[in-house]
């Protein structure tokens, strides 16, 4: 399972490095979305750092939807799926590999957007840096959940509009946990509850993915 996971993750990241979709399409989208969110708050509130954590995570959710779709589209051509199916890869390993690759991509994007949130949304640098561990865990949970929901929504072959309606309700507690822990890192406050939410979600999605990804691949 681990060997397959590393093989699949390396393949997905190699494809990303070649195609540079993250660099030339997703990151610019994320930065623009951050700027737009500032504009949407209006001139009085645009520079208000208290909105920073929430807006950061809202933009990350939108970025995640794009990346999840991309992760599935890579596998999604019928011919590729058929060829790869004959390799007999362990589905649990495939799930872990795709989730790991997606997590790496989200972490990289998150790093850039955290910089954006310091610059554009005026979140304090020290507080933003101390939010890094919770951002890493929350985005990992998002990646695990997203990989599952990406496969559920048709694996790149289903309508693109299905993924958001399936996944966003599941992402909502991660949005809450992420925003609250980022805010606590900026302004002080208890962190353990929000860490617990993100960790429980991460473990739950990893567990379900390892157990049931094979069922989704069969279907």
């Amino acid at each position, binding site marked *: 399972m681990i060997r397959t996971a590393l093989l699949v993750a390396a393949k997905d990241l190699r494809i990303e490095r070649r195609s540079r979709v993250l660099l030339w399409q997703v990151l610019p989208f994320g930065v623009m979305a951050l700027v737009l969110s500032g504009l949407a708050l209006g001139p009085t509130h645009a520079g208000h750092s208290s909105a920073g954590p929430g807006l950061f995570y809202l933009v990350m959710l939108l970025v995640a939807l794009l990346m999840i779709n991309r992760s599935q589209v890579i596998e999604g051509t019928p011919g590729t799926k058929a060829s790869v199916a004959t390799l007999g890869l362990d589905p649990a390993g495939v799930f872990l590999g795709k989730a790991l690759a997606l997590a790496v991509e989200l972490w990289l994007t998150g790093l850039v957007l955290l910089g954006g949130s310091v610059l554009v949304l005026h979140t304090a640098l020290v507080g933003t840096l101390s939010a890094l561990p919770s951002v890493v865990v929350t985005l990992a949970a998002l990646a695990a959940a997203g990989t599952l929901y990406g496969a559920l929504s048709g694996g790149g072959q289903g*309508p693109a509009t*299905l993924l958001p309606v399936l996944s966003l309700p*599941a992402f*909502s507690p991660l949005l809450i946990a992420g925003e609250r822990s980022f805010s606590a890192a900026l302004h002080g406050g208890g962190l353990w*509850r929000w860490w617990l*939410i993100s960790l429980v979600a991460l473990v*739950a999605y990893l567990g*379900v993915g390892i157990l049931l990804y094979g*069922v989704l691949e069969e*279907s």
Partner: protein
Amino acid sequence: MMKLLSQRLLGPVTLVLLALTFWFGLWVTPPDKIQGNLARLLYVHPAIAWVALYLSFGTATIASALYLWKRSRSVVMDRVAHCAVEVSLVFIVLTLITGSLWGRPTWGVWWAWDARLTSTAILGVFAVGYLALRRANDDFEQRARRSAVVAILAAINVPIIHFSVQWWKTLHQGASVFTPGGNFKVHGVMLTTLFISLAAFTLLFFWLLRARYRVEVLRDERQRVSLDEALAQRRREGVH
């Protein structure tokens, strides 16, 4: 014989209990000393919420799990899960409506980002997502498996969403029925009405589930007939 009798009696008994609920709730019980007549929503809102969030979602989850387990996999489980989610969505919407009706005079707004209302709304979108997934899929096996996984994921999310939203913000009325020690807060005819309401809406769930299940069976039978015709037509292509 017993099964037939209980099936025939389900509808009439449900209607009688609903009628009793409304009669007791609107006329027999006195107004609450603090909330006045607004408290009469207590006789429907908790019962509807219990059906929406626990009974129907729980039924869908169990049926979905049984579908995914090879030994109990059958089209019956898939149908039960599907119908339970549809009925759940109806009750979720009713929960939100009755909750808002109570909230407007109490909090001054129709929607106040209360923990329970927000969790319920999110679960409603889960239900919509489940139904959207089924509509997007023609292939029975694929649709059944994917829906079953979605239902199980939704069930796993129930406690996660519940705690995250609750810790985030709580404006909701504290427990209306039980004290923290587990004793009843509501007494006398109010408590009786509450139990009647719980029974009524629970039976209503099963009545609606059964009716919806019957429609699903008829739809599948019609589809099977058209499949037989499609097969015959396809075979004729081979002859000509």
